[in-house]
């Protein structure tokens, strides 16, 4: 049988994340959500404690954690605020293509100075015309001597207005579809890079999201990651690594919803007793607990699979898809447990539903996850 117990080291990492989430994130979560504030002081503290560049090896100034350890931290952060967590872990997504596709010299030149101080990076794949159909992206990269010239627009880019570095996926030839996609590292300071204005969102309102325009942006060929045409594979391998922590993020939201619902059910009285003593509410809480537990175990299993050297495409897609669906269901049931109060913004659970919704959409919509799951599954039967 596998061993599900955490090591003392993992317990310490989780304690650190829990302490930070409760002391720094939770007190600001409702206000940041209400007014859509990007709490940069909190992100700076997260960086200072080593909670930001979790996947970057220590030799380049990151925390050098495996995926299980990342998931333990992400779940704790998301328990306090899903939106802030999205912004804290966006560097992991943006820097992963450099970790997977960069040469040792590129990693040293780009990652070491980047991680040496508080800075944000953004992963630029999705475009206004589509995210799931990544093979059809339109941003062009034209070769000009030992440079490339980038033209196009990306959208729904996390942290883009505040980022100093972008990992950008562009095509050297749209006719080639997937085989034309190429990845580049582009500093915000490059001429022709323009992040758009912060989008008003349904949830994750402490996070910042905008378009990024690239107009005649000159990128030296030394800032290309991998060869021309390797970008699509690099993007997919990146998402294989970062999808599982989204399962952990969703689990954190779901656990928060269950915690709020159970605590409220013990306090709220109807018909002369706490509603936790009514079977209708007990069944709700039991179902919520099952969903949270299953989401966490699927996430841990996917993370463990990847930490043991496998690609984990199937496992991470199952974990992300299940946990994000579970987060929406559990947040929904938490609101129902609160009744009318749950629908009010003065109570914490309606935010959880709005935050949970995004986890079904970003880092691969759940429809794509199911397509991937079916494809991996059917290969075993073919």
């Amino acid at each position, binding site marked *: 049988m596998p061993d599900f117990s955490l090591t003392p080291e993992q317990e*310490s990492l989780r304690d650190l994340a829990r302490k930070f989430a409760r002391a720094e994130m939770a007190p600001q979560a409702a206000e940041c959500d209400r007014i859509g504030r990007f709490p940069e002081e909190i992100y700076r503290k997260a960086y200072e404690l080593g909670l930001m560049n979790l996947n970057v090896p220590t030799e380049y100034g990151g925390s050098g954690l495996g995926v299980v350890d990342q998931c333990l931290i992400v779940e704790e952060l998301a328990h306090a605020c899903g939106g802030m967590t999205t912004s804290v872990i966006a560097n992991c997504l943006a820097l992963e293509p450099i970790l997977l596709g960069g040469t040792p010299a590129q990693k040293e030149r780009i990652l070491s100075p980047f991680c040496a101080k508080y800075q944000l990076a953004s992963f630029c794949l999705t475009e206004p015309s589509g995210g799931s159909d990544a093979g059809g992206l339109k941003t062009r990269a034209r070769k000009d001597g030992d440079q490339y010239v980038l033209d196009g627009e990306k959208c729904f880019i996390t942290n883009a207005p505040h980022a100093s570095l972008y990992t950008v996926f562009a095509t050297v030839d749209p006719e080639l579809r997937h085989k034309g996609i190429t990845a580049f590292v582009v500093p915000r300071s490059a001429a022709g890079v323009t992040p758009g204005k912060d989008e008003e969102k349904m949830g994750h309102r402490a996070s910042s999201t905008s378009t990024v325009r690239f107009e005649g942006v000159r990128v030296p060929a030394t800032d290309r990651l991998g060869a021309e045409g390797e970008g699509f594979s690099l993007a997919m391998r990146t998402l294989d690594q970062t999808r599982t922590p989204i399962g952990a993020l969703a689990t954190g939201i779901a656990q928060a919803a269950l915690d709020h619902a159970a605590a409220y059910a013990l306090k709220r009285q109807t018909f002369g007793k706490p509603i936790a003593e009514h079977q209708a509410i007990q069944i709700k809480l039991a179902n919520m607990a099952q969903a949270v537990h299953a989401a966490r175990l699927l996430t841990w299993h996917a993370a463990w699979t990847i930490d043991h050297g496998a690609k984990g495409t199937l496992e991470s897609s199952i974990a992300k898809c299940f946990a994000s669906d579970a987060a929406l269901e559990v947040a929904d049931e938490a609101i129902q447990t609160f009744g009318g109060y749950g629908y009010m913004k003065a109570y914490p659970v309606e935010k959880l539903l709005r935050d949970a919704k995004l986890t079904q959409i970003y880092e691969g919509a759940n429809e794509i996850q199911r397509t991937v799951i079916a494809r991996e599954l059917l290969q075993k039967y073919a």
Partner: protein
Amino acid sequence: MEIVVCVKPVPDAETRLRATSDGTRLDPEGVKFVLAGYDESAVEQALLLKESIAGSRVHVVAFGPAPRTEEVLRATIALGADQATWVDSGADAGAEPVRAARAIAGAIASAPHDLVLCGKQANDDESGLVPAALGELLRVPEFSCVVDLRWDSATSRFRFQRPIETGVESWSAPAPLVVGLQQAWNDPRTAKLPAILKSRKAAIGKVAAASASSESRVVAERFELPPPRTGAKLIEYKTPEDAAQQLVRILREEAKVFP
């Protein structure tokens, strides 16, 4: 300066507690243990002194059973302590304070110590006896409930204050000194992730508690949790005056707080 900090693992305030089956003490099974709050302030004070006095070292000592004591010591290394010594209590986790002080003094006596810092009391048994007993056993002056501890290099003396009910006392004393620190007058730092990972590999010195210190003439007879709180009574009212009248009536007639 050689600074020794004595710390104790205590139950996390969020842990659900229960008594052992014989009802004589807290059941440690399933309890999460953390650094005591007063001790957090003591570690922070030690690190602040270390940072302000060149060539200083912080040596943390704890008496208790495995694995909680070692875990708490690792937490202090992650915060910045240079050395940690675990005085193993064996299975006896509920040692009374003077016996704990004897075990700790045994470890400190042979190590350099210009300053011995303790939390003024532990958050679990609240006895507050260990700092005073350490002073006696080490034959060193001891002050408790101390705040604002500084080292005055011009006079080579510690300067510190004691807030008491009638005012604030200011004292100075030379090294060596034992100090019991008041909680939360400084702002204890949080260990950073790389330091936490590094602390897992740190060597923790381990010594057995001296056998002569294991005799005890006191016996813990009974441990009871506070009775569960009963439900609150909500007053429904139309005006503040109405609420006040109802409240006074309840306090007088039901709670019998007023005659």
